[in-house]
């Protein structure tokens, strides 16, 4: 160094004392042995209050104190270094200063760890920014949930001859809503009812909006076509033309309350279950075809299945979250569903729905789960 720079930059002491970050040196148990001027100025602590008198943990907010003892200290002893840990430093005036700390362990000549050097960076702005991002993310999540709720709202058909029950559990983990939906509406009041359960690919506001479009489209189109197969064809056309809900899976069913005739069609969707009060529950494997707009082409005709239900029977429509679970095959999922339905076939629908959701829906799964039960009375 030459000229005017020399006197300041030549002293290690000045480099230490007035570094652009706080420095705190501690013994291995956290007892503070040295701090720099920057740390003093920033936190309001004087070094005589700290050195030999307090541990670094003691000037952290309580949550950070536990975190220090359960994470930072053991890590330092195991890997001699931690970087970029977010903590809050307790200032002398009782305020809290968000900080990022990094620490290294220095050993003596015999290799025994002796001292921990910690640099402390002011992270107030960064923390504010992170909180804003988090808030924005939560806000978006709330909008999506609200959107989803409003799209699923609306009364279900009620009739002396028909009992309906729905259960919907939004994804437990993660922040996004999924695109599962259920719907039930009269095709002819008191005579024929349409039942739909679907699953739009993707998550978040986009998936919720696509779900709303397809749900409305299925209601509108169902009035113009004759049966679940043609309804799927019309939805296929709709999805392709409006570029919405590609690869959506759904099951459409039509139940005639007088003849007990059930017609159904599954576009890449798990099969409905027929629940006869006097027989074992049965997966309805007919009427299968690909998801909507699967090959950018309308599939025609869409296969349909038919079944005459016994008096007092119920039918269950659901999304894959009910039968798919990590570490379990789909067959096992179906077996468990049938077993649960069998055990509960005489219970009120409300209890069946609650029981299935409780025992089958994976509490840790990221997927939402949707269930629609309809029973003839």
């Amino acid at each position, binding site marked *: 160094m030459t000229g005017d720079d020399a006197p300041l930059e030549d002293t290690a002491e000045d480099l230490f004392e007035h570094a652009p970050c706080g420095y705190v040196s501690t013994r291995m*148990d956290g007892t503070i042995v040295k701090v720099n001027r920057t740390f003093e100025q920033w936190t309001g602590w004087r070094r005589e209050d700290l050195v030999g008198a307090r541990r670094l943990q003691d000037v952290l907010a*309580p*949550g950070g104190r536990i975190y220090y003892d359960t994470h930072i*200290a053991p890590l330092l002893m195991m890997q*001699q*270094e931690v970087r970029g*840990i977010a903590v809050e430093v307790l200032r002398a005036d009782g305020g809290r200063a968000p900080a990022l700390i990094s620490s290294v362990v220095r050993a003596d000549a015999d290799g025994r760890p002796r001292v921990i050097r910690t640099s402390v960076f002011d992270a107030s702005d960064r*923390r504010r920014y992170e909180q804003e991002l988090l808030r924005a993310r939560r806000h978006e999540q709330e909008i999506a949930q609200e959107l989803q709720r409003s799209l699923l709202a609306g009364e279900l058909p009620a009739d002396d001859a028909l009992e309906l029950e729905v259960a919907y559990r939004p994804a437990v983990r993660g922040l996004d809503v999924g695109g599962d939906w259920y719907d039930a509406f009269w095709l002819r009041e008191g005579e024929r009812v349409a039942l739909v359960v679907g699953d739009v690919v993707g998550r978040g506001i986009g998936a919720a909006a696509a779900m709303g479009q397809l749900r409305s489209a299925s209601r509108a189109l169902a009035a113009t076509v004759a049966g679940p197969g043609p309804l799927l064809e019309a939805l296929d056309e709709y999805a392709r033309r409006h570029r919405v809900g590609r690869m959506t899976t759904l099951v459409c069913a039509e139940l005639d309350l007088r003849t007990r005739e059930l017609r159904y069609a599954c576009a890449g969707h798990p099969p409905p279950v027929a629940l006869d009060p006097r027989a074992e529950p049965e997966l309805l494997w007919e009427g299968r075809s690909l998801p909507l707009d699967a090959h950018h082409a309308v599939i025609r005709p869409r296969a349909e299945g038919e079944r005459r239900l016994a008096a007092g029977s119920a039918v269950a429509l659901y999304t894959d979250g009910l039968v798919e679970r990590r570490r379990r095959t789909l067959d096992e999922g179906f077996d468990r569903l049938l077993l649960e339905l069998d055990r509960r076939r005489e219970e009120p629908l409300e209890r069946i729905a609650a029981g299935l959701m409780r025992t089958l829906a994976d509490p*840790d799964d990221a997927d939402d789960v949707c269930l629609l039960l309809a029973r003839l009375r």
Partner: protein
Amino acid sequence: MTVRRRNNVVEHGPPDAQPMLFAHGFGCDQHMWRHVWPAFADTYRVVLFDHVGAGGSDLGAYDRRRYDSLKGYADDVLEICGELRLERVVFVGHSVSSMIGVLAAAAEPERFERLVLVGPSPRYVDDEGYTGGFSREDIEGLLESLESNYLGWSSAMAPVIAGNPERPELGEELTNSFCRTDPEIAAQFARVTFLSDNREDLPRVRTRALVMQCANDAIAPEPVGRFVHARLPHSELALLEATGHCPNLSHPEETVATIKAFLAT
């Protein structure tokens, strides 16, 4: 899914010797015992494992309901004992695993010969007539700390091979194990750990036990260690010179010597 795989069970020492089962506490994994277990591997069948959600355990086996209380973790300990056919077990538990060991020993007393409890606390939150050392707000603060350190976690814990240049896999091992702390699992484990109350379970234990109490342990202060000793019927109290909450890492020699002295009596 075997229990071995689920809990990342690692064994050392003669397989036909008396088993010594080491259980790590909240925040870290079985590496917490790295300076302790080798001292016992000559004479004991040393069994190390990770709680589900920590270290090299199978995260897919995490079940929010099972692990909603310490009982789920105690059941895992018993399952490990069952699968490995461990009898006359010396159970060594650090921090929250002390209470996990207490629950396991109370449930299957015939399985355990000794309990070594390092920094135990039956309840962390203060209660009427009881000082655990923490308030509920403190625990909320911890959850915030966990949340704000979730993103930085993987890059923060860069492998440090310094001091072990001949064993580069050590750095890899550490990075992997410490980065695998799923933030949501960590948050639930924190709640279960710091909000549980096992004071009533202590008198149910019939197993001989050693309570190891550090000086200046902010997580489990000395009055708490004395409380555990007073309520555990067949217990001894060892006051360590070691400070802090992790004597197994900071003072392994004293930790080993104290355990050996207890096992020799």
